[in-house]
């Protein structure tokens, strides 16, 4: 119909003759009257050009974005192409979105990072019921522990009161041996009480903590992860994490850990990136081989009890007492769990000492660029800046971003590869991430993988014995931690795959 065609043709003519204002007017009228057909899209595209010509860049961009969402493939390609040209031409053009499922702009790959208000609602509607059950269990456990605690303290008190001080006589060797034997028996009884107490305490807290993790934490994860992308398991085999930890070489050389305990593993694929993170505690073990000679429990049950001089046994028991009591008291005051195996191996049997090298969250993912070297980013604290200690990590790389240099120190074997990985963009993103987390962060890029270790001093995801479980604060804390970790993919833009790899 001539009425419709005329504005389009004259609009295009006006555009060709650079009469932009007129072109805009004609084309807008045409678009309002026209149906969605080929001409309409033609008019829209010309309208964008007219806006640019007239200097109205903002309207052009807005219209382009509208065109990006159209159903027509060619129009989308054109709009995408046009938008990338409005930015200075760096080679950032990506294959135009062919189908909408691959378009990750503006979505969070099925993980909706909810707000705190939504969390509060969820908490009140669904979590409170379960939490009340656990609260009852907790109170029952507290009562039990109080009861057993009182009984045991009475026993210990009796031991102290009825200790035969009068019989202690160190004048002759025989009398001395006898006195030591008495002290030995007394200490043995005391250690036995400690042991019994720890066994009871750890088994009773174990029951309600496990139930808590599997129910509550799983529910929080399902709340965030509507499409069930993430998999949560309470304790996976720690071997793979130990291998990854060693591969990352964040803690290497003298402080390379030999043992890792892992809790609360979450894995999944966000967009195109596979991620895996868990709460780890990495420790160095120092074995006490000398203790094998004085292994009391072994000796007790063979007939060789009094082959070792009695005062050595007393000495060993005193070590156990001096290590055990502070440990128990410290854990109980905070209401944390007492790890039974740690207690048995380190304190009673005194076979190993373990020193924690790193405690916190460890995150692994595939990086979006491929490279063969290692680059390690460490917090800029004194021991990492000392070049002599860190010579095995490579050279110090001095990068351009001053804020980044203030917060981190970078070691790498290859200067060009380090800068290829740590672009100015990524450096800014790391700085922002560190400010978000407010903790020490260690990052490592090795063989096309990225590892991030975030240091947390306290146990995560653990309910405390003497605090009520109905509070919103712990739930909020777990939620913030999950958000932080899951947000890494978005924050560092790991899904932008425009390079080989």
């Amino acid at each position: 119909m001539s009425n419709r065609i005329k504005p389009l043709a004259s609009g295009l003519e006006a555009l060709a003759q650079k009469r932009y204002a007129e072109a805009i007017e004609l084309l807008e009228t045409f678009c309002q009257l026209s149906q969605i057909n080929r001409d309409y899209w033609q008019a829209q595209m010309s309208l964008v050009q007219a806006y640019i010509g007239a200097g109205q860049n903002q309207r052009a961009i807005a219209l382009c974005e509208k065109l990006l969402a159209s159903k027509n493939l060619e129009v989308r390609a054109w709009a995408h192409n046009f938008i990338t040209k409005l930015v200075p031409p760096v080679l950032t053009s990506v294959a135009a979105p062919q189908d909408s499922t691959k378009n990750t702009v503006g979505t969070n790959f099925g993980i909706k990072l909810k707000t705190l208000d939504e969390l509060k609602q969820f908490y009140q509607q669904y979590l409170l019921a379960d939490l009340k059950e656990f609260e009852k269990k907790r109170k029952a456990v507290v009562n039990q522990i109080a009861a057993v605690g009182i009984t045991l303290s009475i026993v210990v008190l009796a031991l102290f009161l009825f200790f035969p001080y009068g019989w202690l006589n160190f004048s002759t060797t025989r009398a001395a041996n006898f006195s030591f034997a008495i002290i030995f028996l007394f200490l043995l009884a005391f250690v036995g009480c400690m042991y019994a107490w720890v066994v009871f305490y750890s088994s009773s807290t174990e029951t309600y903590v496990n139930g808590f993790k599997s129910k509550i934490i799983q529910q929080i994860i399902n709340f965030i992860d509507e499409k069930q992308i993430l998999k949560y398991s309470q304790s996976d085999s720690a071997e793979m994490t130990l291998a990854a930890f060693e591969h990352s070489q964040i803690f290497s050389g003298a402080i390379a850990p030999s043992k890792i305990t892992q809790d609360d593993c979450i894995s999944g694929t966000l967009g195109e990136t596979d991620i895996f993170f868990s709460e780890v505690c990495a420790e160095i073990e120092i074995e006490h081989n000398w203790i094998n000679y004085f292994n009391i429990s072994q000796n007790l049950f063979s007939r060789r009890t009094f082959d070792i001089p009695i005062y050595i046994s007393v000495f060993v028991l005193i070590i156990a007492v001096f290590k055990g009591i502070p440990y128990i008291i410290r854990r109980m005051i905070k209401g944390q769990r007492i790890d039974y195996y740690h207690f048995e191996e380190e304190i009673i049997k005194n076979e190993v000492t373990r020193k924690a090298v790193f405690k916190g969250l460890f995150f692994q993912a595939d990086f979006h660029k491929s490279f063969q070297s290692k680059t390690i980013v460490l917090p800029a604290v004194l021991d990492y800046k000392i070049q002599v200690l860190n010579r095995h990590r490579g050279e110090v790389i001095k990068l351009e971003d001053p804020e980044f240099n203030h917060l981190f120190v970078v070691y790498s074997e290859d200067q060009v590869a380090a800068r290829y990985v740590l672009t100015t963009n990524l450096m800014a993103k790391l700085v922002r991430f560190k400010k978000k987390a407010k903790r020490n962060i260690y990052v490592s890029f090795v063989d096309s993988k990225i590892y991030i270790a975030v240091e947390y001093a306290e146990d995560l995801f653990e309910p405390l014995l003497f605090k009520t479980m109905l509070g919103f604060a712990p739930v909020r804390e777990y939620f913030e931690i999950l958000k932080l970790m899951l947000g890494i993919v978005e924050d560092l833009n790991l899904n932008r795959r425009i390079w080989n790899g």
Partner: protein
Amino acid sequence: MATFILSVLLTVVLIIGTVVAILIWLYNNLVGKKNQVDKAFSSIDVLLKKRCDLIPNLVAVVKKYAQFEQQTLTEIANLRSRVMSGQATGAARVDLENQISRVVGNILVALEAYPDLKANQNFIQLQYSLTEVEEQISAARRFYNAAVTEYNDAIEMFPSNLIAIAMNYRLKKLFEANTGDRQNVDVGSLFEQ
């Protein structure tokens, strides 16, 4: 008397020894930094060659789409052969490489209008490789700038500037964007190509 002379001699020897040691250290440091600059420059060179190797692939893939302007393709093939022949050096070489960057950029942007080409697996792979090589070139340039800054610092700061003057070392120039790249892009003219 003898011990006095001996002690004076010893002190003098020690002082001279320390001064010589410091001079040697400064000299080595300076030479090390100069070599670092050369190493950085050659790493840029390696990556530029790598980009040159990708150009024939680009031309081959695009040629099939006959509508695409043959003129641009021949232009880039010419630029490449000039670089590979090795005749251009110094400023002329830098100029050539900048031209190559610009033309490749324009080609890739203009190809956005060909959706079937965009879906071609070979082309996508090629695009990824080109992006990767461009980023690596940019990383190598940053390395070069860092090395040159360190070298220039060493030349200008006391006390190594004394040695630098003695050895006739000159300041080196950093990589800068030339005025052509710094201008804002004229979107309209890109369209009319």
